[in-house]
């Protein structure tokens, strides 16, 4: 099996693994502002230019959700650089190494913002019972 096929298989497994979790992280849902440091603030700007169009707020849109994927950063970096499926590759000229590092910081901060979102979803479900 070629290297690209291995990574695609691995990514598909991880996608399946997280199917049950909510990817919603935005402030109205989580009821808390996303806490960011300087690198993840810079990473958020990179995300808005290159990623947000297909993964709005890290949720699914044209592309799959990112927020609830337990992907290690090296896999994410690999997918950004090489592309996967319909997702284009983002070479150095588009996202340099420093920006890519900041982007990973932002994605990590977004993922950690999960607890508030899940709590809100739970409250919502309870209120409808």
């Amino acid at each position, binding site marked *: 099996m070629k290297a690209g096929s291995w990574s695609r298989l*691995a990514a598909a497994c991880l996608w*399946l693994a997280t199917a049950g979790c909510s990817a919603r992280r935005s402030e109205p849902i989580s009821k808390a502002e996303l806490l960011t440091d300087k690198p993840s603030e810079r990473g958020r700007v990179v995300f808005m230019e290159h990623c947000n*169009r297909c993964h*709005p707020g890290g949720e699914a*849109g*044209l592309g799959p959700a990112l927020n609830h994927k337990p992907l290690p950063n090296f896999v994410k970096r690999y997918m950004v650089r090489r592309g996967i499926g319909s997702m284009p590759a983002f070479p150095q000229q588009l996202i340099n190494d420093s920006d890519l590092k900041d982007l990973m910081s932002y994605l990590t901060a977004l993922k950690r913002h999960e607890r508030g979102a899940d709590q809100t979803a739970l409250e919502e479900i309870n209120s409808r019972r």
Partner: protein
Amino acid sequence: MSQTAGNATGFKKSALALGLACLPMGGCHYLRTPVSGGQAEFSGHRPLRPQDIAVPTGFRVELVASGLTFPTAVVFDDERRLYVLEAGYSYGDSWALPRLMRLEPDDRWTVIASGDRNGPWTGAVYHQGFFYIAEGGQLEGGRILRLDKNGRASVLVEGLPSLGDHHTAGPAIGPDGMLYFGQGTATNAGVVGDDNDFLGWLGRFPDFHDIPCEEIELAGHNFPTAKGLTGAFVPIGTITSPGQRVTGRLPCNGAILRTPLEGGELELVAWGFRNPFGLAFRGSELFVTDAGYDERGSRPVWGAADLLWKVREGAWYGWPDYSGDRPLSLPEFARGKGSLPLVLAKSPGKPPRPSAWLPSSAFSAGIDFSTSSAFGYVGDAFIAQFGDRAPFSGPVLRPVGFKIVRLRLETGVLEDFAVNKGRQNGPASLSSGGGLERPISVRFDPSGHSLYIVDFGVITTRDKAASPRKNTGVIWRITRRV
């Protein structure tokens, strides 16, 4: 084994092991069924529950009005009375009467003016005793109307090329006292195709096509349609050749235009937009939302963002060969399979960088800026996202849009401001909720303390056809709790 080969093998093993380890934890329903926002089964009754809309802590949502048919704008007069514009037309070729109506203190509506079958009335602004209305012009071409408070109308501009996909929209009064408005394109990406037949207008106007604002030179690429090969900026079934020139003229498509408030000469401000729908000034700077390409028709484009532009006089903004400052010949716009041919032999300019890249397929529509510290976020843009029209506009994995977003202009960072609660994003009808359906515009009241959301109502898009539902439009209001 070399060091490189060893690293590659290690990567394969760790990636596979990680994937397999996680596999038992999940379910696969998420993968099987891409869901677009319009795929709800609509019963005919739209429940309305402001508490189903999530907003940041400290804000509250209220229901102002309901039962409207295709509302597109709210506007306030100098006595701060609220008026609502009903479009009179919706995608899906559904017709009604365009109307401007005033909400009275006892919640009754007074109809100020009605149009004829030339909707959609897409936007309105009030200025010094007059309402200025953008008439979409689906049957007779676009117009800019001026109405006094008694509904007496005069036509400031007419004959705008609005018979196609995108209409005359978004009037705004500039600091120079001129009326600015957007004129959308006839097609998705410059080429008339079978998608336009599906939308309904090609049967009515088989010779209609896009008109450039300045002379252009074509590359001579032609695309297959049911009526034969078709080039850009020509009627369906017409072949173009390399080096062919197309004369530009006013009025044209894909442009921001302006006219004096009393009527007069039409002026070109900028061109190369696709669907310049929402216009708003922040101080002396004009910003416009521009809905990105769809993956449909003879020249489908995948993954193109909606855009927010700061309008620079005389500039060309890239349509039909760029998305933002990125040429459509990049593989990303063809799902990585080859590349799309550019239809212009020579670009009229290099498009500027957008002020913000907005989610693809969201249809980012109306826009307004916060000016009050009582509401907060002063200087930030609030944008209504109508929501995807998949599968017609191209497939999505999950619903996109159906919310109000806040944009920090200085950084281009976009955040949700008002969204439906629930496990995933989407219109209320998809989750049996009572919140937002299809927000089409936003406007702050004259005090700047309240943000009004115009919610167009339910449109389902099963089997590609759009089915808009009359009497499901709503006006919401968001204020900060004291």
